[in-house]
């Protein structure tokens, strides 16, 4: 057995034995795409698929973190253990990040059956980090019965969470624009449950009416009103998430969703590994640099350059002329 495999095996056995430091360490390896993480994930994978995974998304400042914290507490009251993955953006310049979601989840820290992990997007643009789904899977394998994934403040097009979660909750607040905003494609379309948070503010009825108007009756997308800071509406929200999951199960939809998700994951990994394979060597990186310069100098278009990069895998540095 290789050292990597041995390390992964030891980590996984501690994790499954309930060692929370091992869980935290495994999440780090997985988040970093470390070989130990990959091994650990493959050992843990058969134990995944049991948790109910809900994604919480919506614009920044709509109260996602507070709501996620309240929801975690609600599930704890219902006797279920909870994992939370909270994603915040990385700086495109420094690559650093300020991860502040825990500020709104203080009370969870005292509960050993809740595990909260913050992640930075590290350059991903879909509202999650590249490995958020894997981090959720490890929490699932560790026995968390509910996993809540909180996205970065999402505008209109950050829809990745829908493929990582069984149920997607889109959080809105009153005063967030006129009815046309809600009719646009993208984030509104991925909602399985709509939440109007800060429902004590003016304009809540108008927003609720607009939302009801755009969600066809047969899609069962409920509109829940919450005031997360006062823990109002959280129980109704948990009920709605559970009801959606129930519907997925009973309609057989869940199987289709699982297949879709698996297909996307395999393709995404294949893409990453293909690229990593190309750029793994000194000569591969030199080849890329050469092509990049040619594109920047307008000697080559990006499509041709990409084709040359793929063609030249394993061969001599590609000609750029």
């Amino acid at each position, binding site marked *: 057995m290789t050292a990597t495999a041995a390390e992964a095996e030891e980590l996984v056995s501690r994790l499954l034995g309930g060692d*929370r*430091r091992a869980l*935290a360490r495994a999440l780090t390896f997985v988040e970093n795409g470390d070989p130990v993480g990959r091994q650990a994930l493959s050992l843990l994978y058969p134990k995944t698929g049991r948790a109910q995974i809900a994604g919480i998304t919506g614009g920044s400042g709509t109260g996602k973190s507070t709501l996620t914290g309240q929801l975690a507490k609600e599930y704890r009251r219902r006797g279920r253990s909870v994992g939370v993955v909270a994603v915040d953006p990385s700086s495109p310049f420094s*690559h*650093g990040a*300020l991860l502040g979601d825990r500020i709104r989840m203080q009370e969870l820290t005292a509960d050993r059956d809740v595990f909260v992990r913050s992640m930075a997007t590290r350059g991903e643009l879909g509202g999650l980090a590249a490995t958020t789904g894997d981090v959720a899977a490890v929490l699932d394998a560790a026995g968390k019965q509910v996993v809540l994934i909180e996205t970065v403040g999402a505008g209109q097009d950050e829809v990745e969470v829908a493929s990582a979660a069984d149920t997607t909750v889109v959080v809105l607040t009153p005063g967030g624009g006129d009815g046309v905003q809600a009719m646009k494609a993208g984030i509104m379309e991925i909602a399985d449950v709509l939440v109007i948070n800060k429902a004590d503010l003016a304009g809540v009825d108008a927003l609720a009416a607009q939302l009801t108007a755009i969600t066809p009756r047969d899609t069962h997308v409920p509109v829940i009103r919450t005031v997360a800071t006062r823990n109002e509406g959280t129980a109704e929200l948990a009920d709605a998430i559970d009801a959606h999951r129930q519907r997925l199960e009973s309609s057989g939809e869940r199987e289709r969703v699982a297949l879709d998700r698996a297909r996307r994951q395999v393709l995404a990994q294949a893409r*990453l590994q293909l690229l990593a394979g190309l750029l793994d060597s000194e000569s591969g990186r030199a080849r890329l640099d050469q092509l990049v310069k040619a594109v920047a100098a307008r000697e080559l278009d990006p499509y041709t350059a990409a084709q040359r990069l793929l063609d030249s895998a394993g061969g001599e540095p590609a000609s750029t002329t």
Partner: protein
Amino acid sequence: MTNERPTRVLIAKPGLDGHERGAKIVARALRDAGMEVIYTGIRQTPEMIAEAALQEDVDVVGLSILSGAHAELFPRVVAALKERGVVPEEVLFFAGGIIPDEDIPALKELGFREIFRPGASTRDIVEYVRQWAAERASGGEATGKP
């Protein structure tokens, strides 16, 4: 794909003083230096800090305190951290705030490798953490000496 991991830092404020500007400035400076900073806000109990450090698997724990209660609180924070397996041999503990000279030896004894006091620049703090992370990454035991 890169395996280079950003340094993860927890910045926390134990105790009851609400003066968080310093902590926020340090958090922001570390962020701008390319680190992932988990900021937990004010009025943290030792258990909250230790639990966050555990769950987030941080490389660095930085505590900020201006209330004068460090002699009271820091040993409790360190005890809670150690209880969870977060030990100064693996994780850099540092502190900042209004801390008198005579208290420093005891804090170093506890496992805090450096104490930054009023007048310290964010550049010093960033450099210090960076140096520590680089030494650790190079495989050697990080000394934490700037």
